[in-house]
């Protein structure tokens, strides 16, 4: 059973979801079992990640069909780390939703669907076959449709329509790209495609397929011209749902882009330049959007767009240092964004509003909590010892080494604007005196919660802040992992060998 470790992070959420469905009407049991399931998934992902950090590329072929014919799951260091972080974030969100998700939503299957969403996320990080990747994307999309509409509030349905339309469009474009590649080269396996693309002379059509995939993944990860659905929908569902969306869903698009543009479409000047232009635009526009918003969750939504730009910029440069920074940023951002949305949910519980003008006085009343929140919020900006600092440093160094003034300007400006956005939240929610405390008091649910529920709400934020601090203070370790990711990404041959020739398969 140990040799099957590659598949456990996908199977465990599925098994948990099935078990949860048997307790459809008992939300109390669902809350407990769901947490246990997420815990087990986290343990198996941790195990998988530790094995991939040795530099091995683990593979598993479901159905025992050899690689280019059957599908394959591949775990290299990038997949391993992402599966680990996805499981960690999902665990934190699940613990948060034990208290924050009411009986109404739990009764319509919130917890099983959350498990299936995690299954889709882990599946797409591990897929070694581009059509299989598409299928996992669909699993993610369908579960996220349910999560975003669950509860059927008016605002939710409005947000869901924008979200659903754009994501279905993205899937269609992605599928068209796959169809073109399959029509041209007759293969769907990523490693096999990599060989066939390097041998093919049909550069024009392959570039069109590349652009189709770029647009498809671009919509999903909300980069510059295709971002508007994100701030229109992410602030509508409950905080726990926006946390897992904001932390992970856009990152799947980024991951797919990294995979495709490192393995399949290598050394294409046109696409690299386009990526840098899109990246700079997303950074600036996302950050500009963030500083004018009043709703805390809208601020974070715009910051997602801005910070996706950092990763795409690193991918566009494609120097060792840039990849190091980009991958580090990806890891940091998953934890930081999930945490930011969870914190906004907790602030809602403490003050009864998401809007900055209705908040205030938190530091005065909860000094220790506020310091924990500050650590999480300022790691978004990249204040030195925290996790956001190192990837930004690497990315800046990389753009200076390349003398790419656009990217340098973009990174500096976007970081500065992010600082303004976060400081606005800090001033409005923590330092300012509450404008009308007596009136707001009625909407505050925090005072009615029993003590153990307060602790359950704080635990996930503490876990994620801890993870963020670990990444910042123990940056050498994470940087080693990122370097391993770079060596694996920059030499597609190791990936191809692992998939096609020496499969570490069970007999």
């Amino acid at each position: 059973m140990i040799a099957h470790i590659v598949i456990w992070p996908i199977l465990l959420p599925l098994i948990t979801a099935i078990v949860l469905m048997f307790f459809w009407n008992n939300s109390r049991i669902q809350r407990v079992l769901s947490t246990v399931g997420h815990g087990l998934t986290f343990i198996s992902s941790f195990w998988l990640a530790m094995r991939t950090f040795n530099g091995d590329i683990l593979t598993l072929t479901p159905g025992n069909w050899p690689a280019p014919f059957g599908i394959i799951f591949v775990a290299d260091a990038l997949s391993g780390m992402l599966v680990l972080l996805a499981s960690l974030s999902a665990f934190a969100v699940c613990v948060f939703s034990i208290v924050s998700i009411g009986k109404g939503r739990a009764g319509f299957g919130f917890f099983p669907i959350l498990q299936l969403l995690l299954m889709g996320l882990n599946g797409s990080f591990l897929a070694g076959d581009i059509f299989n990747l598409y299928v996992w994307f669909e699993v993610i999309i369908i579960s996220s449709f349910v999560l975003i509409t669950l509860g059927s509030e008016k605002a939710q349905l409005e947000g869901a329509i924008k979200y659903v339309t754009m994501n279905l469009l993205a899937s269609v474009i992605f599928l068209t790209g796959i169809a073109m590649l399959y029509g041209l080269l007759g293969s769907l396996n990523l490693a096999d495609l990599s060989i066939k693309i390097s041998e093919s002379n049909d550069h024009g059509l392959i570039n069109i397929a590349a652009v189709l995939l770029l647009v498809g993944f671009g919509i999903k990860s909300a980069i510059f011209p295709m971002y508007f659905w994100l701030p229109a929908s992410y602030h509508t569902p409950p905080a726990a749902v926006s946390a897992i969306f904001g932390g992970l869903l856009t990152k799947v698009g980024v991951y797919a882009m990294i995979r495709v543009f490192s393995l399949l479409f290598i050394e294409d000047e046109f696409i690299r330049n386009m990526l840098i232009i899109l990246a700079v635009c997303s950074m600036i526009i996302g950050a500009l959007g963030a500083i004018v918003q009043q709703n805390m969750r809208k601020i974070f939504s715009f910051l997602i767009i801005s910070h996706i730009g950092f990763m795409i910029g690193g991918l566009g440069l494609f120097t060792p240092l840039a990849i190091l920074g980009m991958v580090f940023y990806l890891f940091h951002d998953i934890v930081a964004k999930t945490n930011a949305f969870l914190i906004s949910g907790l602030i809602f519980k403490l003050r009864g509003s998401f809007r900055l003008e209705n908040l205030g006085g938190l530091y005065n009343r909860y000094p220790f909590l506020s310091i924990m929140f500050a650590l999480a919020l300022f790691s978004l900006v990249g204040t030195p010892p925290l996790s956001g600092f190192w990837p930004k440093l690497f990315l800046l160094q990389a753009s200076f080494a390349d003398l790419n003034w656009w990217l340098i300007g973009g990174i500096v400006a976007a970081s500065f604007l992010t600082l303004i956005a976060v400081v606005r939240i800090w001033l409005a929610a923590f330092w300012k005196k509450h404008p009308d405390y007596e009136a707001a008091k009625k909407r505050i649910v925090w005072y009615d919660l029993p003590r153990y529920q307060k602790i359950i709400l704080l635990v996930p934020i503490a876990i994620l802040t801890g993870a963020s601090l670990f990444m910042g203070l123990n940056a050498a370790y994470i940087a080693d992992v990122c370097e391993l990711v770079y060596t694996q990404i920059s030499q597609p041959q190791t990936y191809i060998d692992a998939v096609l020739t020496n499969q570490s398969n069970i007999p």
Partner: protein
Amino acid sequence: MNTIILKTASKYLLPLLLLFSIFVLLRGHYLPGGGFVGGLIAAIAFVLHAFANGLENTQQLMRIHPGFLMPVGLLISAISGMAPMLLNKPFMTGLWKSDPVPVIGSLGSALFFDIGVYLVVIGATLTILFTISETR
């Protein structure tokens, strides 16, 4: 719909259609058919019965809530996928009994996967249709 012809016909059609759905399910491995189509046919059988005799009668006939079939089917499919892992083979490897069984043909883990799909499709379709017709 209160026509005596449909009522009488549905009584005979229900077992026939169910039998046919199982036939389609078993035939599915090498020929057109399989769990998905079989499940749809079985669901149609119950929907027809509900049309003719009213929803309450069909629900009484089924005894269990159709939604319950979904986790059961998923569980059967998941177990059939995981069974090879006990024999240290990758997930979803087909396990086959060496000699064919009369009527059914060759027996393998793929059949149980399909049975799972069959149940999930019945469960999902009937849950949707019953929910729609309940809230008139």
